[in-house]
């Protein structure tokens, strides 16, 4: 059942995304000031929202693990954080390419960019921490605590464009600005891409959770064999 769901999510996400590509390249016009390169925002913004949402949901599953002690919550939290990290890399790389064209530089130490880079480092640290602990319950407990600490930076990334005057553009989506900062067709495409990314992310999380469960089962069998 879960395998079928994984395939359905992955196929639906991929289909949506390819359908969106047609809209991005063939239907929507170039942006007046930036030209064709602005289209990278249809990867950059949805990837950013997907990763921040993932880190936040990962934190909720971490709290779930700490309150219930069920290893399934730990597997979910680890899987979600790992998949979110992939989208965080995608967000940073696409942002960097966009910056090179528009700002003339690959990177600047602006608060938004810095906070996002810090976020990447924190969750790379999270994965390293998990690798360094063998015992599953201890690994779950400590990585859950670390995930909760890490979420503080997720809030900083999200709010940095409001708290600080940044080179990175401020909020543009209607849900944060109340409207008038972005063309409705462009905004609609961002949300459609976000939906596709969330489907793909959900499928990747299910695949990763399956791997976690298999690894735990193999570990348990190995312990049994050595006992």
């Amino acid at each position: 059942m879960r395998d079928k769901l994984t395939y359905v999510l992955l196929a639906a996400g991929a289909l949506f995304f390819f359908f969106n590509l047609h809209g991005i390249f063939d239907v929507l016009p170039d942006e007046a000031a930036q030209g064709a390169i602005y289209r990278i925002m249809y990867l950059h913004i949805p990837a950013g929202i997907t990763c921040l949402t993932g880190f936040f949901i990962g934190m909720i599953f971490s709290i779930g693990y700490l309150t219930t002690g069920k290893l399934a919550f730990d597997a979910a939290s680890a899987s979600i954080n790992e998949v979110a990290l992939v989208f965080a890399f995608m967000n940073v790389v696409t942002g960097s390419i966009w910056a090179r064209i528009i700002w003339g530089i690959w990177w600047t130490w602006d608060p938004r960019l810095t906070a996002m880079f810090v976020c990447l480092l924190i969750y790379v640290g999270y994965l390293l921490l998990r690798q360094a602990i063998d015992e599953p319950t201890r690994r779950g407990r400590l990585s859950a605590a670390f995930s909760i600490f890490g979420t503080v930076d997720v809030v900083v990334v999200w709010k940095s464009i409001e708290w600080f005057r940044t080179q990175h553009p401020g909020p543009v989506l209607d849900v944060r600005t109340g409207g008038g900062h972005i063309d409705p067709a462009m905004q609609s495409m961002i949300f459609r891409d976000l939906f596709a990314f969330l489907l793909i992310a959900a499928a990747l999380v299910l695949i990763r959770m399956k791997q976690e469960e298999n690894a735990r089962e193999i570990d348990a069998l190995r312990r049994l064999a050595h006992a």
Partner: protein
Amino acid sequence: MNAFSQALSIARKDLAIELRTKESLNSAGAFAVVILLLFSFAFDLSPEETKDISGGLLWLCFSFAGALVFNRGFAREMPNECLDALLSSPLSAASLVIGKAITSALLLLVVEAISFFVYGIFYDTNWLKQPWSLLAVCVFATWGICVIGSVFGALTINLRLRELMLPVIIYPLLIPLLIASIEMTNLFLTNQAFNFMWLRVLLVFDIVFTCLAVALAEIILVN
């Protein structure tokens, strides 16, 4: 005995040990001075350029020296299973972490005082233009560094490659605090006006991470 008194008891115990052995203070103090010395060779700066990078230079030095201080905090309890004894005592895990953070903060403040003195001599800089503001920044930033350091010192206590893991996981978390302290220290060393935005960042960071440390100490330390 309330939690704060328990934390103070732990801090008193650790300070007594430290004053006898001086292992953290000597190593962190010497390390900070060596870093300042190395920076003086690494960069050939004019007096104006020196002032511009002072904050960054000093806080990098303090955060590296800090790692030596809070690395020892929980490692000191490992021989003879002292940590297990402490955890099975009526002390709460939160008071243990906060007590260790208090000790680390006091030791790191001493290292900072030594470093400022040495820095003033090596780099020909008057760092006493706004002494009280500078002291406030040092106290708030040092507390933030040490509370994070103590929590993660506890978290990594039994890990493989502990000494490598600790810096990898704490420095990214410390970056907002280090940015705020560097900016404010630069202002004070160049005798500019107080910036409340960075002070707010520092205070919010301290409050949030202290609350998380207290809330999660039990989970981190107790099996």
